[in-house]
């Protein structure tokens, strides 16, 4: 196939924010996750753990607790003292209610999701009723000194357990009185007495209260008698998080040393009646604090300050080896944070509150496979654009010619004109941007840089004309004929400027004709989330990748799947391809060879050659190194359509600048951990 000059970029200094809290919704198989920067993400486990929603953060809006309540409504509470309900269709906070108790440290929803309890800085526990259109204050429970760091409802909803510094309280919900108060550092000798923070708590239906504290203990209490039933010291550092399985026979705890432990309620004697909590499985998947854990029926999920989300399936609960039986770690969002100006060879990096524009370097040498070429011109950091205000950036893009940069926050849309004069660069903000419905969820420039497409809510896409020397005009708003409440999250425009494809949160792919500003057709619905899509410049075929790793090619002019796509569906993709655990986040095409398509996920980049036969399950999928050792005729027999390269990891972005030039953006894990604060010091043998 040929050689590529790969511009291997590792200067994208992205540091993903740590995981602060999580909430799992059993019915919808969705996990909501809040990061330390206030961002909220929703992972859909049914769609292969795809991050289907992302609400960017806000400087002033930290999230300390998340709850699913009243079905599929998501609530968050944080140190700002507000309870926030999130609009998962428009991907932004819908409404907030002040808790009037100072910063909120904890929140819990009762079993049927009708009431929320919050634990505040001033030591009060307040009940709110979940009503249509928001939450309503119901009552205050008994107040005692000391911030309430954790809360848990008894499954029956009659009592609440609240953990503070040095003590646990059990509150009667009806009377609002403290029914029991348990000191947790009672057993510690006076001389060593220091503050014992109860970080997390769980109330079982049997009346057992489980607490985890800063002394590294997991303790089991009988709440009625206030007595300690069992105590396990799991760590020398704090145990920060705790979660109970639905059957209440297993719990998972996370410590500040990055370890998680599973406890199980097991019979003391085989077949006996008496059961005890036993520490069964230790895991060390994180390097930093494990601030949040979740126990699903089949997996332990942990999230740490090292920004990793780890899903560890419980092998005894998994019936077959397959997609669900694999440990998976997510560090990076399933979104594209890099955009590339192919013609100008620029890269735009999106951070939470600023953008960076870089010009790629160049070389004047050529070489053989694997060689590192001398760099004749170094890459250049051209520009840093800081977003004003506390809001984080939703999306950004740079035009292919490199002269326009656009980004959007929750309430503002910015467009800049970039002028390149020799080596110097000047930026001018475009005045009078049209008042669009904000936020924009995705921005995409037409390939001739003449138009900007702005993805908006309710399935609509705004078309904005970019005018020289620095102006813009709102041309049209495209809307799906059927109407939807979900926002558009992915866009793709054709090279000839005639077509635009838009994907909304309900996974519908709509295609619009830009010539007539009219809806053209809808791609047949598929039961999985779209992770990336692109329109082929020569054939106008829409190439779609789904989160279950399926690939489809849809001919826009003919309004149907292409013959190749049907062939792929008939013969099926390779097993290893389908078992990959990160979604394709970007698709690009070779401008000179119409049959070649570039795809990438976090762990590989793949050039798909449609002219070659598909591999079947018996052939080696990743066969590049084997092929290199073969002679020419033998090679020809072994060739198949998927040319996979795993050299660049973890890969955030890859694109074809021209037919012989690739750009890859990597973010090595070592570089991230170098920027994190040092973890709790651990004694290692021999050091």
């Amino acid at each position, binding site marked *: 196939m040929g050689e590529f000059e790969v511009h291997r970029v590792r200067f994208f200094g992205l540091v993903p924010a740590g995981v602060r809290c999580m909430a799992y919704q059993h019915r919808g198989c969705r996990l909501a996750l809040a990061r330390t920067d206030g961002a909220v993400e929703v992972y859909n486990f049914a769609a292969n753990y795809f991050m289907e929603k992302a609400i960017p953060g806000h400087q002033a809006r930290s999230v300390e607790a998340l709850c699913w309540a009243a079905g599929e409504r998501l609530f968050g509470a944080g140190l700002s003292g507000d309870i926030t309900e999130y609009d998962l269709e428009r991907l932004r906070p819908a409404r907030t209610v002040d808790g009037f108790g100072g910063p909120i440290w904890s929140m819990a929803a009762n079993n049927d999701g009708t009431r929320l309890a919050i634990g505040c800085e001033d030591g009060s526990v307040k009940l709110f009723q979940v009503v249509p259109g928001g939450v309503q204050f119901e009552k205050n429970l008994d107040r005692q000194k000391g911030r309430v760091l954790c809360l848990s409802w008894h499954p029956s909803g009659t009592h609440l357990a609240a953990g503070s510094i040095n003590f646990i309280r059990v509150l009667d919900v009806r009377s609002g009185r403290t029914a029991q108060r348990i000191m947790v550092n009672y057993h510690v000798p006076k001389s060593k007495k220091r503050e014992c923070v109860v970080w997390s708590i769980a109330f079982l239906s049997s009346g057992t209260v489980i607490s985890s504290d800063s002394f590294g203990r997991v303790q089991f209490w009988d709440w009625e008698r206030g007595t300690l039933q069992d105590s396990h010291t799991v760590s020398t550092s704090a145990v920060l998080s705790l979660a109970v399985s639905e059957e209440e026979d297993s719990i998972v705890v996370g410590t500040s040393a990055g370890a998680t432990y599973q406890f199980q309620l097991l019979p003391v004697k085989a077949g006996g009646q008496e059961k005890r909590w036993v520490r069964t499985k230790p895991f060390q998947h994180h390097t930093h604090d494990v601030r949040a854990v979740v126990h699903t029926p089949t997996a332990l999920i942990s999230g740490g300050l090292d920004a990793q989300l780890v899903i560890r399936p419980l092998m005894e609960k998994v019936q077959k080896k397959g997609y669900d039986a694999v440990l998976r770690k997510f560090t990076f969002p399933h979104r594209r944070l890099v955009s590339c100006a192919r013609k100008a060879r620029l890269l735009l990096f999106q951070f939470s509150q600023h953008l960076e524009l870089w010009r790629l370097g160049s070389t004047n040498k*050529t070489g053989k496979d694997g060689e590192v070429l001398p760099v004749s011109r170094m890459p250049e950091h051209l520009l840093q654009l800081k977003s004003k205000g506390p809001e984080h950036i939703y999306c950004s893009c740079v035009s292919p010619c490199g002269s326009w940069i656009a980004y959007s926050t929750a309430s503002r849309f910015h467009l800049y004109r970039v002028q390149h004069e020799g080596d110097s660069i000047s930026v001018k903000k475009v005045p009078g941007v049209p008042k669009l419905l904000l936020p924009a969820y995705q921005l995409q420039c037409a390939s001739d840089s003449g138009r900007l497409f702005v993805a908006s809510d309710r399935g609509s896409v705004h078309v904005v004309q970019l005018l020289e020397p620095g102006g813009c005009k709102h041309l049209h708003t495209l809307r799906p004929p059927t109407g939807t409440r979900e926002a558009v999250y992915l866009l793709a425009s054709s090279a000839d400027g005639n077509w635009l494809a838009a994907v909304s949160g309900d996974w519908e792919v709509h295609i619009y004709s830009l010539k007539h500003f009219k809806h053209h057709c809808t791609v047949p619905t598929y039961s999985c989330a779209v992770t990336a899509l692109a329109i082929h410049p020569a054939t106008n075929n829409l190439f779609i990748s789904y989160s279950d790793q399926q690939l489809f090619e849809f001919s826009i002019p003919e309004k149907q799947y292409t013959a190749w796509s049907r062939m792929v569906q008939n013969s099926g993709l390779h097993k290893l391809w389908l078992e990959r655990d990160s979604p394709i986040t970007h698709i690009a095409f070779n401008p000179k060879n119409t049959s070649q398509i570039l795809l990438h996920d976090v762990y590989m980049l793949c050039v798909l050659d449609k002219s070659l036969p598909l591999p079947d399950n018996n052939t080696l999928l990743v066969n590049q190194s084997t092929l290199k050792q073969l002679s020419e005729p033998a090679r020809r027999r072994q060739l198949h359509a998927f040319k996979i*390269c795993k050299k660049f990891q973890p890969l955030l972005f890859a694109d074809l600048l021209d037919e012989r030039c690739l750009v890859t953006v990597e973010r090595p894990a070592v570089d991230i951990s170098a920027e994190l604060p040092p973890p709790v010091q651990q004694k290692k043998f021999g050091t």
Partner: protein
Amino acid sequence: MAALCEAFTLCGLGPTGGVGLGSGLLALEPGADPDHVLLTDRGRTATLFKVSDQKPLGCWSVKHGQIITCPVVCNFETHEYIAVHDNKVLRIWKDKDVNLDKVFKATLSAEVYRIHSLPHAEPLVLFRGGGVRTLDVLLEAPQQEIENVISDEVIKWSEAFLEGQQPVLIFVTEKDGDFFVYIQKLKMRSLCKYKLEQQELSNPLCFTAYIKKQIITLLCLYSSNSVYKVLIPLQQNSEEEEQTLSKSLLLNLSISGSVLKGTSFVVLDKDHVAVLGSLAASGEESKECLTIWNTKFQTLQASKELPLGTSGQLWCYGEKFFFTHGKVLTVVIYKCETSSLAAAVGKLKDSQTSDLSSFVNWNTLGDEELLVSCQSQQSVALKSESKMMLRSKKSAVEDIQPDASTIGQFLLSIKDASTAAVEDELRQLLSKAQRPDFQAAIGCVISALINRCKADPMFYPRNFLVQMIQKRELSYSLCPDLMAVALEKKDVHLLQICLQRFPDIPEEITYACLKVFLSISDDYLERTDVDLESVISYIDIEPNNKEVKTEVVENGFSTELEEDGCDVTGMKETHMMDSVEFCPVGPQKAALLNAVLHSAYSETFLLPHLKDLPAQQAVLFLRYLHYLYVKCSEKINTTLPGVLSPTISQIMDWMCLLLDAHFTVMVMLPEAKRLLSSMHKFVRAQVRFYSELNKIEGSLQELQRIKCQKDSQAYSIEVLELI
């Protein structure tokens, strides 16, 4: 796995609880709807229940003074209910009828035992005398004469089936402790009588039966707490003489010391039975419980304690158990999935994966089935055989049936035919193309041959056995006695092949082989045919090896003993010259020992046996291991050349094991002293050498680390070739 799910109460049975009036239940029969059951008590009442709603739909009673003597059944065709009261009075009614006095009535001439209702067939009426009529025939002339078939036997149990549109009735009678089985085929007007094999000290308590492929399987629960299985072929055209049915043990109802005293049971599917009974552990009072057993794995799969006691009756319709528990009729829903070993150990694979096809399903080739197929020469059992999935995926298109019967015949002929005839047959058998179940059949053939060998010392088809083991994927468990016979006959070649081929030889047998190999003299071995492939590339097969051997047996000189203090390299060389250069055993013996080294074993199970090895033999074996170890260490990659030659880790493992087993002996034994010290020096030299390597590795690792760091620049332009 089978499991008992939720339980609920269908109705109360007490005097106040509606039905039964405290006198207990006569029977429970399925109603017209799958969700309906008909409950007949021991008094005057029959009640129809809708199970899922737990409510009665209808209730009918006979007059005071009358008593229902035969469980009410539902005619599935006409949706009528049929009952008999006072033994002879037949009543038929419909849902809408209220008063039983006013419904159809027929007085019969003989006493009815039971009525069996079958879907898509006319109900069958079984009389106490053993006569059977279909209901329509009976109603044409209610007063017709009913013959008495069973004279003074008493019917204990009966059941009816449909076999290809043909109703079949089976019933069991008893007379003076003897049990008889009758099979009545109505259309053919044939009645077969069998006698059930007697069992000392225990009686059948309860029966159940199912029909599959023209064979009735009768299961009997005996008072000895076991379930027995009796196979009754339907097509046997009975010559009038009475046959005795032999039974085979299906299940022993014991759970780790405690015994389940079953009172009644039902069959759930081909692998599962449910038993209701009382569980009595020694020294504890018994508790009644409902249990589900897997007959394939002989395991208890689910149980539920019934502390309030039961009446001992159990019914099962549509995945639900019905029984009385205390004063209520309880329904327990169960789940019963096809069991597999994977499920039994808790790891059930997706049933759609075709991985299963690589295993032989031994259970489908049970002994009885093979016997049935051979004796009756029918294709019944063979059909199930041909479904077997085999290791070899080549599906033979050969005609299966004649072949199978030849194997069957051949199995019989092995027992008494002459050696020449057997060998001739064997040759023919082997020349045939592979049938799908050939593998399993070969297993049967080999066991038959081995049985003959044991009975007849002159009979030993060695060549055939060697050929079989070399060509087929056999295992120890398929022909467990083969190696025992070979050991007895000291057939070292066969043992060598077995050790190389069988994946599952018990440690006891491995040890026995080792002992035999070490005890046979090299002179004898020289004359035998042993596969030398594993030694040929590192032992010189020269005549001088005999010399070496005698040297070893005499244990050489002790002059080297004072060399203890000399430096390592010099010492190593002299020792290599001394005892290690030559192989302490002949090549044949070496090849045999290599086969032992190659076989799989578990230390825990091997060690106790290895302790029994005589000291001289242990020393010889250790000497040989030492020789191999030194040979291995000569090469940089520490492997011996040649196929099937032992690996360094196998050698080390055996060496440690042998030293573990015989350490005290070795220390005491004067002739072992020099060997041990030589071994110690060699090992010490090796340890020093490897510790040097360790240092080099450390420095190289550091280099690697530096190189890695360099690699992570922020920007580079590289060339990538995709092919």
